[in-house]
């Protein structure tokens, strides 16, 4: 009973934190894009426009839920739920600090990737269920894109697992506290993972499933109100998960650089973790507001002809070096 | 090659061609296709620049106006063809220039000139269920704008 209660409490806390992060990230996205385009961004609602996203959420909550008459009712309803739940569930295994985290799984990294790739179902359901041709094209693109970026994504991190010798995220961070961070050990892997993670979370320049200039809004063209908000939140949650994993695998998780991490209070560790995550998210936003969108076949070509060979080279080199060091 | 030499060379072959004023020649409808072909093949007038019509209700005629241009010689020639207002028809130029496709659709739409042999003679600017031909002088617009919409 006690475990049940604590689990529910944990879920609620996690949901609250992620929803709050979603608000902050939307605000950040707007501000960053505005500044890069020499605009000011939201500055009317609340101090410095901080309440703008909150106001938007209220607007979305109050909006009428419109469903296409000939859409598939069940699938149309389930898609936004899955789109949010999958990245949400992935947070279970992410170690936020040395003592903060829900559950440390042996196969932590594997679990995260598995849940991350299940988002593709949400996108396909949304595209199929809404009975809209733009949505359908968006869904088809998404399927192709997810599959082709899943492979280099995982291949890129295999190097880290080879070096670390474990799949548990917490242990990987602890290993990094003893030596170099893995970004120094695996620089190519880091870049590849960053690119593939951007593609995996459907962010520009890989935002083909939504592609607002081609497909209006892609797979969520027909969604409005709260369902739309869930897709939106899901996208940011997935960005958060990708960045968290990236930070854990390559940037030493909660570790503070050039400091003795053994006797530092937990809140500093947490701060370090969050600031690293936000740095990565800022990088992703920077990409989004600078680059044009790739075309679908170029995306495939980039995935298979650039990322994949480089990831394999990285894996091969890492394997050889690890073998040579150990023998 | 100036306008006069162009006209002279046309007149040698086609006797029924008149010069209206500078830059415009008048060609009878029956001679139109041979003249255009001559322009295209011999005088290198390889651009169809203008294709339009004008309604002359007092003469009971519709005047087709064609503009041909030669990038090579930099000569511009306009050809006028007089058509009867009642059921006007012209041979199409779409087999020579694709540019004629939309131009002819526009003239068909707004003047009601039939272009024989046009592959896709539909209305282009007005909606498919539009009645009448808007740029004819006797076109009377139906009384829409009966009432200003009330946006209260």
């Amino acid at each position, binding site marked *: 009973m006690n475990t049940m209660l604590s689990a529910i409490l944990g879920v609620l806390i996690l949901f609250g934190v992620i929803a709050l992060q979603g608000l902050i990230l939307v605000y950040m996205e707007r501000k960053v894009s505005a*500044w890069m385009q020499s605009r000011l961004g939201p500055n009317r609602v609340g101090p410095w426009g901080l309440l703008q996203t909150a106001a938007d959420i209220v607007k979305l909550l109050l909006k009428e839920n419109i469903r296409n008459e000939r859409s598939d009712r069940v699938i149309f309803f389930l898609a936004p739920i899955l789109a949010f739940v999958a990245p949400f569930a992935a947070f279970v295994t992410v170690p936020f600090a040395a003592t903060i985290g829900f559950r440390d799984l042996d196969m932590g990294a594997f679990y995260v990737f598995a849940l991350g790739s299940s988002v593709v179902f949400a996108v396909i359901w949304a595209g199929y269920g809404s009975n809209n041709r733009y949505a359908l094209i968006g869904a088809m693109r998404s399927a192709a894109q997810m599959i082709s970026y899943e492979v280099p994504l995982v291949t890129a991190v295999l190097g880290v697992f080879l070096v670390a010798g474990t799949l548990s995220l917490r242990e990987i961070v602890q290993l990094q506290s003893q030596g170099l961070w893995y970004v120094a050990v695996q620089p190519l892997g880091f870049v590849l993972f960053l690119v593939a993670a951007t593609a995996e979370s459907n962010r520009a320049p890989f935002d083909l499933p939504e592609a607002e200039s081609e497909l209006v809004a892609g797979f969520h063209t027909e969604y409005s109100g709260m369902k739309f908000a869930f897709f939106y939140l899901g996208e940011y949650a997935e960005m958060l998960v990708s960045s968290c994993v990236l930070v854990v695998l390559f940037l030493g998780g909660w570790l503070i650089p050039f400091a003795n991490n053994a006797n530092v209070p937990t809140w500093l560790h947490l701060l370090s973790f969050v600031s690293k995550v936000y740095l990565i998210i800022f990088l992703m936003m920077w990409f989004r507001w600078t680059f044009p969108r790739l075309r679908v076949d170029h995306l495939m070509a980039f995935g298979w002809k650039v990322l994949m060979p480089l990831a394999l080279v990285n894996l091969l080199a890492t394997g050889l070096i690890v073998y040579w060091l150990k023998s | 090659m100036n306008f006069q030499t162009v006209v002279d060379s046309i007149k040698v072959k086609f006797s029924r061609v008149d010069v209206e004023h500078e830059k415009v020649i008048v060609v009878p409808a029956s001679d139109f296709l041979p003249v255009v072909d001559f322009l295209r093949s011999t005088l290198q007038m390889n651009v169809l620049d203008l294709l339009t019509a004008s309604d002359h209700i007092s003469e009971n005629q519709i005047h087709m106006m064609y503009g041909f241009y030669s990038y090579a010689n930099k000569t511009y020639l306009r050809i006028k063809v007089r058509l009867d207002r009642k059921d006007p028809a012209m041979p199409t130029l779409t087999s020579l220039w694709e540019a004629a496709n939309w131009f002819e659709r526009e003239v068909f739409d707004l003047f009601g000139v039939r272009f024989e042999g046009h592959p896709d003679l539909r209305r282009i600017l007005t909606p498919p269920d539009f009645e009448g031909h808007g740029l004819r002088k006797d076109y009377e617009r139906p*009384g829409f704008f*009966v*009432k200003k919409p*009330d*946006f209260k």
Partner: protein
Amino acid sequence: MIRYIKDLLKNSWALLVGLAVTMRYMFRPKTTVQFPEQKKELGDRYIGYVKMMYETEGEHAGVTKCVACMACVVVCPVSCIQVTHDKHPDPTKKRIAKEFILDYVKCEFCNLCVEACNFDAIIMGHDYELALYDRSVMDMVLVKDMKYHDDLYDASRRQTGSANRSITSPREREIIEVINKKEHEERIKKAAAQSENAS
């Protein structure tokens, strides 16, 4: 193989150059003008609402300068101006505008009427907030019936003048008269009541 790596490096560098541009702009002053608080300076020739000019001195101060010469009515490409005339209070002059109505639904702000005016009676004002909630109030009365108001150009007191909206064909006129007669009468009454209340 070498070309592959070369291309890869070259393209990565080009991407970084692009990233540098956006990063530079993050820290530069922004170009946004915060509209309702900050306003851009308008040029002298800015074209906004048409503004009626009034005599400022002499016996007939406060009387409109418009002598209903119809130059603006003739020159207007969209026939959005309606002017009726009356006898001028000054005996040396012949006529004066009784009503000057400009329909902003039609007006395309081409400045031709102002250029045509020989008496400097109308100028282009600098008001550019043209949005209204009701189309019927866009027939704006710049001069109203014999009172020669000097305060009629006042956004808070825009009057309706839909009774005089310009009608082009006799057929339309007929239809409108049948359908809208009642409405028009009401509006005229309303407008009269409003102007009474105000004065």
